[in-house]
C-alpha cells in the first residue's frame, strides 16, 4: 500500500521533471526537411509545442510557412525528420482516430450521404464498444450538434461549403478524439458562413471542453476561439516565433468582444506580428 503510493509519487515527480507528461499532446523538437534536387529543403526547424487537456491552441502564420505541415505531423500523416509527437506519455507516429482531423477541404467521401460519412467513422471507432442502435444514435447526435440533422440523406455535392465543413466537424467529433486537429477548417468559406461555424465551434468547445489545435491565417478567428495563439515565422525552416496567451473569459461572444479593449489588444498584437514578418521578408 505505502509502496504503491511512494511509487506513484515518484512516477508523478519524474513525469513533472520530464515536462511533456503534464500535457495531453506535445510536439517535441520537430524538424522536417524535404529532399529536393537542390539538396535538403528545411520546412520546420526545432518546433516544440505542448498542449494541456482542454486547451484551444491556434497556430497562425502566412500561407506556405509550414503550419499545415506541423498539423499533419501532429496527426501522424507526416513523419518529422527529427523529433516526435507525444500523446498522454506515449509517442505516436501513425494516424489514429484519437487525433481526429477536420481537413481544410472537408474530405467527405462523395459516394456516401451525410449520415453515412459520419456513420463510417462511428462504425470503425465504436464497432465493438457500441450496439448498432447506439451507433445510429451517436451518429445522429453528432450531426445534430453541428445543426445538420435535417440533411442526413444528402450527398456532399448537394451541400454548400459551410454545410460540408459542418459534417466534417461532426465526423471528427463522433470519433471522440482526445485532441481535435483542424487544418484551416473555415479558410475556404465566406465571412458570414465562417462566423456561423466559429459560433458552432465555440458552442461545442464550451460543452465538451475539447483539446483543439487549429491552423488559421485569420487573427480574429484565432483570438475569438483560442486560449493560446502560436505565431509561426516564415519558412524555410519555420519555427514558433511568439506565443500569445488569450486571457478572455468564456463563454465568448463575438459581438460583445468587439468593444472589449483586451480583445483589441490581442488582435492588434497578432496583426502586428504578421505584418512585421511580411516586412522582414518582403511582399510574398
Amino acid at each position, binding site marked *: 500500500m505505502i509502496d504503491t503510493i511512494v511509487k506513484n509519487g515518484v512516477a508523478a515527480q519524474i513525469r513533472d521533471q520530464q515536462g511533456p507528461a503534464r500535457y495531453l499532446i506535445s510536439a517535441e523538437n520537430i524538424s522536417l526537411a524535404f529532399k529536393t534536387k537542390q539538396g535538403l529543403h528545411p520546412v520546420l526547424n526545432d518546433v516544440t509545442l505542448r498542449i494541456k487537456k482542454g486547451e484551444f491552441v491556434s497556430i497562425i502564420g502566412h500561407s506556405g510557412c509550414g503550419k499545415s505541415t506541423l498539423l499533419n505531423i501532429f496527426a501522424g500523416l507526416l513523419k518529422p525528420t527529427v523529433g516526435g509527437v507525444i500523446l498522454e506519455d506515449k509517442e505516436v507516429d501513425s*494516424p489514429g482516430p484519437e487525433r481526429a482531423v477536420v481537413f481544410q477541404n472537408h474530405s467527405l467521401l462523395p459516394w456516401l450521404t451525410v449520415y453515412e460519412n459520419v456513420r463510417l467513422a462511428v462504425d470503425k471507432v465504436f464497432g465493438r464498444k457500441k450496439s448498432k442502435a447506439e451507433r445510429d444514435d451517436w451518429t445522429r447526435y453528432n450531426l445534430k450538434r453541428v445543426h445538420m440533422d435535417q440533411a442526413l440523406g444528402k450527398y456532399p455535392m448537394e451541400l454548400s461549403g459551410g454545410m460540408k465543413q459542418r459534417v466534417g466537424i461532426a465526423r471528427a467529433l463522433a470519433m471522440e478524439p482526445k485532441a481535435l486537429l483542424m487544418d484551416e477548417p473555415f479558410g475556404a468559406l465566406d465571412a458570414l458562413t465562417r462566423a456561423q461555424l466559429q459560433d458552432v465551434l465555440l458552442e461545442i468547445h464550451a460543452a465538451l471542453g475539447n483539446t483543439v489545435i487549429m491552423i488559421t491565417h485569420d487573427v480574429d478567428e484565432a483570438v475569438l476561439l483560442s486560449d493560446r495563439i502560436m505565431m509561426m515565422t516564415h519558412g524555410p525552416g519555420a519555427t514558433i516565433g511568439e506565443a500569445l496567451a488569450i486571457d478572455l473569459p468564456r463563454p465568448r461572444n463575438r459581438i460583445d468582444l468587439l468593444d472589449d479593449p483586451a480583445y483589441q489588444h490581442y488582435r492588434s498584437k497578432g496583426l502586428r506580428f504578421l505584418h512585421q514578418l511580411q516586412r522582414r521578408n518582403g511582399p510574398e
Partner: protein
Amino acid sequence: MKNNLSFAMDDGVSLEQREATKEKGASKPLVCPTKLNLNAVKPGYLKSIGTRAARMFGRTFCVCLTFAAAIGVWSAIQSRFAPDLPTPAQTWTRAVEIFSEPFYDDGPNDKGIGWQLLYSLGRVAAGFSLAVAVGIPIGLIVGTSRLIRQSLDPLIQVLRPVSPLAWLPIALLVFKSVNASAIFVIFITSIWPVILNTASGVAAISKDYLNVAAVLRFERLEMARKILLPATLPHILTGMRLSLGIAWMVIVAAEMLTGGIGIGFYIWDEWNNLNVASIIVAMGLIGGVGILLETVMNRIQRRFQYHD
C-alpha cells in the same frame, strides 16, 4: 442567449440550403455536355421556337433524313455498280420473314435468329463476367503497388494490341471445345480495358480519401471495400463499358471462325447460302443490340457516378 444563437444558426442552415439548391439548379445544364453540343448544331429557326416538342420533332426528322439518305446511297450503289446486292425492299421483305419466326428450331444446324443471338449474348456474358471478376482485383493490385505495376506493365502493353482472334487457335488447342474457346476470346478481349481503367482509377484516388482512411486506421481489406472500390467504381464501369463494346464486335468474328451456332456463324452460313439480305438484316440486329448494351452500361455508370 443560447436560444438566440441556435435560432440564428438554424436560419443560417436554411440560407445555405437555399444557396445549395440554387447552385444545383445552375449546374444542371452541364450534366450532359455531348447532348448540348448536338443541340448547338441544330438550325437557327428551331432555336427561336425553342419548345421541347419542336426540338424533339426536329431531331427525329433529321435522324429520319440521315437513314433515308443512307438507304438512297445503298439503292444507288445497288442499281449502278453492284447488282448482286439485295435492294432495300428485298432486304425489308427478308427482315419481316426472319423476325416473324425468330425462335424456330429445325435441328442443330437450322435455328431462328433469336436463338443465334441468345447464344452469342450468352458467350459474351460468360467471357465478360469472367474478365470483370479477374480484371478488377488485378487492376486494384496493379494500381496500389508500384512494384507490381512496374513488373506487369510491359506484359500488359505487349499483349494488349494483339487481336483477340489471334488467341483462338491457342484456345482451341487448350480447351478442345469451340464454346469454351469463344468465351476465352471474349475474356481476353474484355480484360485489358477493365485492368487498365481500374488501375488508373486507383492511381487517381484523391489523397483526401486516403487521409480519412489513415485517420480511421482502416486495414487493407476494409480500405479496399470502403474506399478503393467505391472511389474507383466510375473508372471500373468505364472500363467495363469499353470492353463490352469491343467484345460484342469480336464475338461475331470469333463465331465466324468457330462455327456451330451464334449470330456470327449465322452471317457466315447465310453467306455460304448466298442469302445476302439475311446478312444485312443480321448486321442491323447486331447494331441494335450493341446500342442496347451501351445504353444499359451508360445507365449503370451514371448511377454510380459521383461528383466532388
